[in-house]
């Protein structure tokens, strides 16, 4: 179904003597995780539709280093960062968009001290701007009457104070946006941050993603919207744990928009 995706690499741009408007940083989840790949494709469809001249690094992209840094391995983080910065600076990249708040935070806040200075935007902010500029239009018919709750990813919300862009997008869908009790700056983590995604949780009474999913399900929402591939995985697992599969869907904001636009 996605055979007609246009995904040029930065190398191809350079070969044609051109410079992309923006670099789409796909991230490891977006490249390899089956669920997250769907988010990547949905976002690319929107970029294609809006006629954005974007490039990806493809095989030249490597882990941003976020999990290494948060696991305490500063050496590995800086090795990754410096390799990536060398590639990005080599292509003269000025602006980066990414669908992963972890990559977003690391590229935006932690790369400058190592020589990587870019304008970094999260895909929800980027989509909001495309709509504001008239490059993308969405019709909400498909979601009319649906209840959507939005889960704030820690690395987008508290870490970088971005709370409104994803909500503004959801509001354009004609759906009812209902808030969980713990939202915005009080949002509860999904349990994946700080490299927890890659390890079993420490001993406790409950898994964090189940605690969060229960809260989301209790709102009566049909769809839990997220803006982070890790949160998506954690809440998808949570929905299975609370046996609401088939009743509650977990979707990225980009998927909602792409789906509304019938892409």
């Amino acid at each position, binding site marked *: 179904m996605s055979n007609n995706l246009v995904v040029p690499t930065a190398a191809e741009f350079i070969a044609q003597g051109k410079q992309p408007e923006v670099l789409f940083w796909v991230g490891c989840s977006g490249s390899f995780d089956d669920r997250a790949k769907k988010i990547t494709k949905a976002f690319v469809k929107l970029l294609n539709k809006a006629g954005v001249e974007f490039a990806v690094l493809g*095989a030249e992209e490597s882990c941003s280093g976020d*999990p290494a840094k948060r*696991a305490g*391995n*500063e050496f590995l983080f800086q090795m990754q960062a410096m390799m990536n910065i060398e590639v990005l600076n080599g292509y003269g990249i000025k602006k980066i968009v990414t669908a992963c708040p972890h990559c977003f935070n690391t590229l935006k806040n932690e790369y400058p001290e190592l020589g990587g200075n870019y304008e970094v935007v999260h895909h929800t902010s980027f989509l909001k701007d495309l709509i504001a500029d008239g490059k993308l239009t969405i019709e909400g018919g498909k979601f009319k009457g649906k209840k959507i709750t939005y889960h704030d990813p*820690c690395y987008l919300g508290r870490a970088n104070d971005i709370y409104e862009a994803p909500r503004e997008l959801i509001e354009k869908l004609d759906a009812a946006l209902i808030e969980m009790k713990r939202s915005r700056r009080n949002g*509860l983590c999904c349990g994946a*941050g700080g490299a927890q995604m890659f*390890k079993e949780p420490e001993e406790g009474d409950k898994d*964090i993603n189940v605690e969060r999913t229960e809260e989301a399900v209790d709102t009566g929402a049909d769809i839990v919207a997220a803006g982070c591939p890790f949160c998506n995985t954690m809440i998808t697992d949570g929905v299975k744990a609370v046996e609401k599969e088939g009743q509650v869907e977990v979707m990225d904001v980009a998927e909602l928009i792409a789906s509304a636009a019938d892409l």
Partner: protein
Amino acid sequence: MEYIPNIIFTVLLIAGVGFFASNIKKMIRNIKLGREVDRSDRKGERFAQMARIALGQSKMVRRPVAGFLHIVVYVGFVIINIEVLEIIIDGITGQHRIFAPFLGGVYDFLIATFEILAFLVLASVIIFWIRRNVMNIKRFIMGELKGWPKNDANYILYFEVVLMSLFLTMNAADFTIQQGVLSGQFTSEAALHYINAGSFPISGFIAPLFDGLSFETLHIIERACWWLHIVGILIFLNYLYWSKHLHIMLAFPNVYFAKLTPKGQLTNMEAVTKEVKMMMDPDADPFAAPDASEADEVPAALGANDIFDLDQVQLLNAYTCTECGRCTSECPANITGKKLSPRKIMMETRDRLEDVGAVINKEGEWKDDGKTLLNDYITPEELWACTTCNACVEACPIGIDPLSIIMEMRRYLVLENSAAPAELNGTMGNIENNGAPWPYNQMDRLNWSKE
């Protein structure tokens, strides 16, 4: 003979303030055991932040009930200190209500304000006590608050109750004497010393209890309350150093020096940057002799094993923490029953810092006691439960950053001890070998576009 009270008062005042100052000097010495950190930037923003969060209590009121009650006690504390100033001057000079002649009607208004505030403080403190001891609010009855921390919190409340009660009783006795003088009932020289000043909207209700008492009895009550009140304040001042209550002073510098960069931005380790740059520089000489200027330097530990490896702002954080537990009550790990409690991280850091300080007090210098903050106070299990979500940092009403301490200790575990959990070692191995946390080939990163 006439000046004996003045002399006793002055000696008590100097001793009280002096002992407190000497303890604060020790506290500053302890804080300076930490690494230096430059927070001399963005002064305007720092002052604005201090005005908003510390002075303006903007984060306290995010929890409206506790926030409102806290503002009452805070405003009461600050304003009633004007009266303490008068009491101190009276004590030194032997005057009574020395401000009254200068302020006239304003003085009556001020005393009335103090009385109303004292009453509100009393009421708030009683509600605080009920919240803490009766209402089973989780953050007040958790494990780390058992024993001294719980008693400490209650002692502070008892101090406030006693001080406010003494202040109001003193005014009631004073008021009754003034009435007696006005009606011509009390005519002795000592009674005339009680000038007609002040307005007593609260203690006016206590005064009827004193009806019919002789001037001598009232005089004793008034003086006893006066002395106990000021001595109580001096004791309370000195109690601060041993208590979580230091926040009444430290909240201001703590908020001033708090991190201004985005919460998600962790610090960059310069020492590592230097090494990595050398490793990645194709022209670097791997056998080069170290720079002579650096040859004598003991390389600092990477990350934090003990309080010496933390920075001074982190140690100030530890002294500033009031153990309110808002951080812990928002922590996803703690909510789901993990051992981690951000409040406990701060309490353990302070305990360790004070234990180190006690050795220095005794020995004159630091002598290794065989313990470290990591493992002896804070366990790796607590550290590895953190999701770095910043909920604790967001929750703290006075700008404490428990996450930064957790991160420094994780760094030590991984960089100095290679003691990451096994699964994370696998993850890091993957990142190192194929540029992703999972074992996928980097060359396949674009496969999704063709699927």
